[in-house]
């Protein structure tokens, strides 16, 4: 069953076609990676899917519901969550509060003016779970602004998880995370696989090939290939446009 559908999406900035007739269908439970050179329009695509940017034409579906005209919050309510390539968190909140707020958003009853939210155990428990899944539970009480870069990336993930999405859009969650941290991060993602549909943008090929069920290659707004990791790895066009020589892959 298709969980996330994209058909004939277009977006231009002036003369530049950033998204050029993109169609895509992501099966439910699948982890679909999108790779492509810098500036190919991957982040722009995610922004359009999540509703942060308007599309010029084309439509986006969750299941068979057309969500093209919905706002970002409305899409989140339908189970679409995203993480940001460039960290976007609430710097003055603790890690836990960042995530608890996402849990609260999911629950939907935020016009409550009384009752101390910090004492709401269910919120905090759910938030801790998400933090644990992202591997950040030991830093729960630290102010987000004092977390290191790698930890910010994890917090991004935890926030997205806390909204309990059906479809999770991850924009370079591994950016700036290296070594064992990256490995354990990949493990975290691996554990999440299958629980929901994921769209993953990454330049870390090791991670992509380890995680993805299918890979689409986006080059200058167009999808030039979609297939299994194996097929993509060996596609000459993809190599020329993106991967380069095998030994350059680290």
């Amino acid at each position, binding site marked *: 069953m298709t969980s996330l559908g994209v058909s004939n999406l277009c977006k231009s900035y002036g003369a530049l076609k950033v998204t050029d007739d993109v169609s895509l269908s992501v099966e439910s439970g699948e982890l679909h990676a999108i790779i492509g050179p810098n500036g190919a329009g991957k982040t722009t695509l995610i922004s359009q899917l999540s509703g*942060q940017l308007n599309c010029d034409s084309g439509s986006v579906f969750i299941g068979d519901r057309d969500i093209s005209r919905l706002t*970002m919050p409305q899409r989140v309510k339908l189970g679409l969550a995203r993480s940001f390539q460039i960290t976007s968190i609430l710097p003055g909140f603790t890690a836990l509060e960042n995530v608890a707020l996402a849990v609260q958003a999911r629950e939907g009853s935020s016009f409550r003016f009384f009752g101390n*939210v910090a004492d709401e155990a269910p919120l905090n428990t759910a938030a801790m779970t998400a933090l644990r899944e992202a591997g950040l539970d030991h830093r729960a009480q630290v102010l987000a602004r004092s977390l290191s870069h790698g930890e910010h990336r994890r917090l991004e993930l935890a926030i997205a998880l806390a909204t309990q999405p059906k479809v999770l859009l991850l924009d370079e969650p591994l950016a700036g995370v290296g070594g064992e941290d990256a490995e354990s991060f990949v493990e975290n993602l691996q554990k999440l696989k299958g629980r929901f549909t994921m769209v993953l943008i990454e330049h870390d090929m090791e991670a992509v090939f380890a995680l993805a069920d299918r890979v689409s290659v986006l080059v200058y707004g167009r999808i030039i290939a979609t297939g299994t990791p194996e097929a993509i790895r060996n596609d000459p066009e993809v190599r020329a446009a993106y991967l380069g020589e095998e030994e350059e892959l680290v």
Partner: protein
Amino acid sequence: MNPDRPALSGRVKAALVLFVLFALMPPLASALNDPFYILIGTRILAYAIAAMALDLILGYGAMVSFGHAAYLGFGAYAVAILQSYGVNDLILQILFAICISAVFAFVTGAISLRTRGVYFIMITLAFGQMAFFFFISLSAYGGDDGVALAHRSTVLGLDLLGTDYGLYYVTLAILIALFALCHRIVGSRFGRVLTGIRENPTRIEAIGFSPFRYQLTAFVISGCITAIAGVVLANQAQFVSPAFMSWHKSGELIVMVVLGGVGNLAGPIAGAVAALLLEEWLGALSKNWKLYFGIFLVLMVLFSPQGITGLLRKMGIVRGQE
């Protein structure tokens, strides 16, 4: 700056200390044979209410309203207008003030919230000025000259506000009640969303909130609370004029909030006290008191970035993170 547990209790503690001091002030003033301070005190309390209300959106919602004096004016004119129709009850006047303010805040807030930052400051100023000029042209209530009130309001038929003592303690009670209200709001689910919007609106949208509704709600609440301060102020001065709504007043409210320390509710109360008392004292000392007041403000900013709250923190009197 974050609504964390330690800051929370610090805020309440600071406020409690202030409230106790407020409660003790009148008998003290009488004992010192200076009962006049009770009336000054009432004005300070009224401004404290307004400053606290402004902090609710300014400190927690990052919405710097430069037109908040308009609500002060709505509150004051609610008293004048109802009194001219023979309605003297404080509660009715407050309800009326809240109604006008809620409508005005809802409409102007909805428009203003399309903008951010300094644009927001200026568009709220624009609406504040429109209200100001509207009341200036309102000949029926004295226009620019304003109207004197024949008497203070009554509470459920009781002449509670008849004496300066009565007025003072009723105002204090209102302040405490509104502080409790704001305190609850800030710590609530709603409050956390509001603070989150201040921290990073894009993120808040990405987790599924539409900031607009929360900000507008907070804006309306703040406007209504400020209007209550206006009702009190009219009773204190027994006089109402558009001067209550000029942009200078809005500016003064911002000064009180920032001087006290943004985003902790107790700070603005202290800020109102400090600003008005200083004005009172410096004014008595020198006719060039504005010079000294200005110097004080500049020094405060340079050496104590978080206003009075920051100063107390530095001296270790209040704890909480920077």
